[in-house]
Each structure stands twice: as C-alpha cells, then as structure tokens.
C-alpha cells in the first residue's frame, strides 16, 4: 500500500537533503542545486496531495507543479547567470570568499 504518508516522508527527506546541501556546500552552484532540490520536494508534495486529496479532478496540484517547474527553470537560468557574473567579478564561486559588495 502506497499511502500519502510515505510520499510525504520521502519528500520531507528530500527537502532535508536539499537544505543540508544548501547550508553546507560552499560552491554557489551547488547551493543553487540544493535550493532546486527543495523546490522539487515541494512539487512532490503537491502531486502527492493532488493524488490523495479530496478533489483531484480540479488539477490544482498539477497546475501548481507545472508553474513551479517553469519558475524553477527561470530561477535556475537567472541564478546561474548571476553566479557567472559574480565569478567573472571575483574569480571564485566560493560563497565564503564572495564577501565584498563593492562592484
């Protein structure tokens, strides 16, 4: 039996992994990836709730996930280009070393 609970637990585990990555990694790209992972965990939650929810025919969960995926794509593109610009400026992607605001 696949219960809603198992999906929710899995998604919270994925969220925690993403969070751990975002907190521990020093490379900006990997931090961004960790954030993407947390987004994905939320998406999995949406789909699981759509599947087990009271009114699946409204497709709200699916719609939310589709929009979320699109936003995540946009976010990844902009985020990575910001990292590239920052790298070009400070010659590093290490977040600990990017400690100057002056352009």
């Amino acid at each position, binding site marked *: *039996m696949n219960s*809603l*609970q*198992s999906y*929710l*637990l*899995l998604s*919270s585990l*994925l*969220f*925690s*992994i993403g*969070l*751990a*990555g975002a*907190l*521990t990694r*020093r*490379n900006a*790209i*990997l931090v*961004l*990836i960790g954030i*993407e*992972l947390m987004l*994905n965990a939320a*998406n*999995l939650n949406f*789909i*699981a709730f*759509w*599947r*087990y929810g009271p009114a699946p*025919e409204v*497709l709200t969960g*699916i*719609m939310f996930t*589709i*929009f979320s*995926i*699109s936003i*995540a*794509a*946009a*976010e*990844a*593109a*902009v985020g*990575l*280009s*910001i*990292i*590239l*610009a920052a*790298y*070009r400026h400070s010659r*590093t*992607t*290490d977040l*600990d070393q990017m400690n100057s605001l002056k352009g």
Partner: protein
Amino acid sequence: MTTSFMILAVLTVAGTAAAMGLRNAVHCVLALALGFAGIAMLYLQLGAQFVGFTQILVYVGAVAILAVFAIMMTHNDKSMALPDSHSAWVAGCIVAVAVFAVLARAIVSSSASAQTQPPQPAATVQQIGNALMHRFVMPLEIMGLLLTAALIGAVVIAMDRREEMK
C-alpha cells in the same frame, strides 16, 4: 509500500544525497540528474504523466545541463578543490536533521496523511490544456512574461561586459 515505490525512493534519495555529498561538482550534478529522474518516475507512479515528462525535460534536460555548463565555465576556480568546512557541515546537517525530524513527526501524527488510496484520478493532456486555457489562463500569461523576462535577464547578466568596455 510497494516494491516499485521503495526502489524509486531509494534511487531518488541516493541520487540527491550523492548530489549534496560528493566532492566533485560535476559528479554532484550527474547524481542530481539521477535524483530528478527518480522524482519524475515518482510523478509517473502517482499518475501525473504530463508533470513527470515535463520534469525530465526541464530538470534533466535543461537545469542539469545548465548547471554543468556553469561548472565548466567556472572551472579554474581553485576553491572548488577545497573541502567544505567541517563546522558548517556539522551545523548544516544538524539543522537538516532537525527539520526532517519536525516534518516527519508532523506527518506521522497528522490524521490527514493516513489516507488510503483513492481511485486513480485522471489527468489527461486535454484536461490540463483546458485548465490552463480557462481557469489558469492568467497565471499562464504571467508565466510567459516571467520566462521571457528571465531569458532576457539571464542573457544580459551573463553577457561578458569586458567587450563592451573596449
């Protein structure tokens, strides 16, 4: 829990954990692609075919490749070889474990999550299309605008300004 769910869950968790734990950044992204594919298959298992394929198309096909490109372009970064600092690692893991503990406790104790399997709801492409064109037409338009803005913004930000200065 069925076997297929277990396999997919293990695959996804292993992929994402490797993505967050491996030393080599490119390995991280490849493992992440595996994790994304696992999530996509979980979507398929939940009956959300369209979202599953979109997940593969966007995450494995685009975001992972984009991340790989970013890593290659910042390749001569010496700090990549350095290990992540130990204290940050421990602190991050503690926070993550704490968050997971809270979430898991909430999920287990919640009455809503103990639901049994209802009949498979249908989410055909036609239904999704109709929903996008009627109920969700405004978000769709905003999404188009956002994606266009993100496209232009990404190009402008990532453009090398040194050539302009010449």
